[in-house]
């Protein structure tokens, strides 16, 4: 099963409530998958800085003095906010890649959840309500976000097997379904030099999109070609710095409902996830068509083929 949600705000006055609205939507989807949960929030940005959201199973040990250690290695200003098992480390944009290398040397047990200017990903094993409260998601503001609650089928129930998956800077993906050609695709992508950490099928889907975009495809084009190259069932919701997109496989047996008003565009695996959104009774509610890429953007001219982030 798995439950996925997404919320893209058009009305800026709702932004302080994004975390609250998105966590409520995800908690409603708990019985679609109680194994692990995760939320990606596109929040504030510090000019010239990039955020690495990292995770550790032993945060007390790993996060102690980590900002100073990175600063010593890289120079410049490094800030860190610790939230339970996660920490958001901000470094100068130019050092994003160097920070990853340094981090691997300084704290080999720390895993990178996401890299982005506005994106922060929080995910752990457990129920959505517990994961949301551990990271105090409901207090987070932002322009858009996506979330996932997992019923594991293709790989182990671990933090790294939880969604969303970071596919590139400020990009992430959640998935409902199962990919059946992930093993062969993983071998192919690893040969092409793409880093894939786990045996999880969705991570391969995310890596596939990364690979396509590295080759020059736009996010829209990468999603289009996923319809040819990914075998199995999928409803994907992808987040980018400016917006979010939705695509379903041609069979489209994994459910999806969308709602749009003047204030927001919302996605849910089921209508239940949307029922408490403001003005839902007057929203345009529909099911996204199979094999069709949908995209909403804060850019003035949104298009499915925009070069994301």
């Amino acid at each position, binding site marked *: 099963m798995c439950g996925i949600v997404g919320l893209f705000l058009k009305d800026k006055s709702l932004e302080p409530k994004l975390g609250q609205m998105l966590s409520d939507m995800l908690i409603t989807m708990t019985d679609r998958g109680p194994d692990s949960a995760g939320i990606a929030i596109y929040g504030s940005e510090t000019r010239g800085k990039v955020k690495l959201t990292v995770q550790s199973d032993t945060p007390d040990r790993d996060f102690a003095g980590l900002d100073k250690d990175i600063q010593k290695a890289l120079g410049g200003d490094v800030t860190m906010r610790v939230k339970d098992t996660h920490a958001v480390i901000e470094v100068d944009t130019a050092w994003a890649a160097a920070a990853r290398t340094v981090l691997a040397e300084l704290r080999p047990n720390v895993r990178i959840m996401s890299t982005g200017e506005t994106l922060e990903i929080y995910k752990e094993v457990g129920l959505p309500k517990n994961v949301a409260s551990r990271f105090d998601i409901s207090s987070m503001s932002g322009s858009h976000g996506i979330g996932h609650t997992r019923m594991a089928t293709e790989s182990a129930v671990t933090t790294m097997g939880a969604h969303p998956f970071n596919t590139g800077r400020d990009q992430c993906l959640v998935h409902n379904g199962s990919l059946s050609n992930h093993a062969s695709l993983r071998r192919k992508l690893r040969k092409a030099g793409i880093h894939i950490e786990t045996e999880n099928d969705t991570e391969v889907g995310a890596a596939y999109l990364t690979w396509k975009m590295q080759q020059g495809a736009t996010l829209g084009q990468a999603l289009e070609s996923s319809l040819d190259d990914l075998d199995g069932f999928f409803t994907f919701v992808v987040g980018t710095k400016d917006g979010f997109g939705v695509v379903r496989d041609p069979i*489209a047996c994994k*459910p999806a409902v969308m709602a749009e008003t003047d204030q927001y565009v919302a996605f849910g695996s089921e209508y239940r996830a949307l029922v408490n959104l403001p003005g839902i009774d007057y929203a345009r509610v529909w*099911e996204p068509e*199979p094999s069709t890429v949908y995209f909403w953007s804060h850019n003035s001219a949104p298009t499915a083929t925009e070069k994301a982030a």
Partner: protein
Amino acid sequence: METFDLEAQGLRNLNAALQSQTKETNQTAWEIVNAKGSHAIAVGLDAPIEVTVRGSTGYYCGGMNKQATIHVKGSAGPGVAENMMSGTVIIDGDASQYAGATANGGTLVIKGNASSRCGISMKGVDIIVHGNVGHMSAFMGQSGNLVVCGDAGDALGDSLYEARLFVRGKVKSLGADCIEKEMRPEHLEILKDLLERGESDAKPEEFKRYGSARKLYNFDIDNAY
């Protein structure tokens, strides 16, 4: 009229109350408020009662229905009226995938659009859709009628046995062994009755009829991989 607040009183209490009604019941009219997309609303009913659902429903609303009339004043989630045996289910909005799946009898009216696999493996139900239906509708349909006043998606009637399909608009593609068939006077009569029961003002003459070519009934080596 008995009003039931689903949020306050709970799904099990609702279905227990509805399922305990008998043919002789005096409580023939029920209204369900705060449906909020909940699953399995008004399933397994077996009495000639009228149930009105305010709002949209989740999975399997009206499943296994016998005798009852269930009217959803909103849209319906996946599997509405699945395996219905008799009675009527009316959806004012849209219906999600596999509406009326495997249903043996009764009437399912969808006033908006139906999604993919509408009437999959239908076994005698009459389904009237005012809008469009998605891909693989009436897949492996065995008996009954599917009326589509709008357009049909890909692979309509794939591997059809004997259900009748009537489509007024365009058919994106026909599935394996599904063909267009002649609309004879007796079919126009059947369709007229179906449209009346479905509260549609479409004219039977505007429709085309599709059905099984019956070429998959027997094993053919050329169909084997």
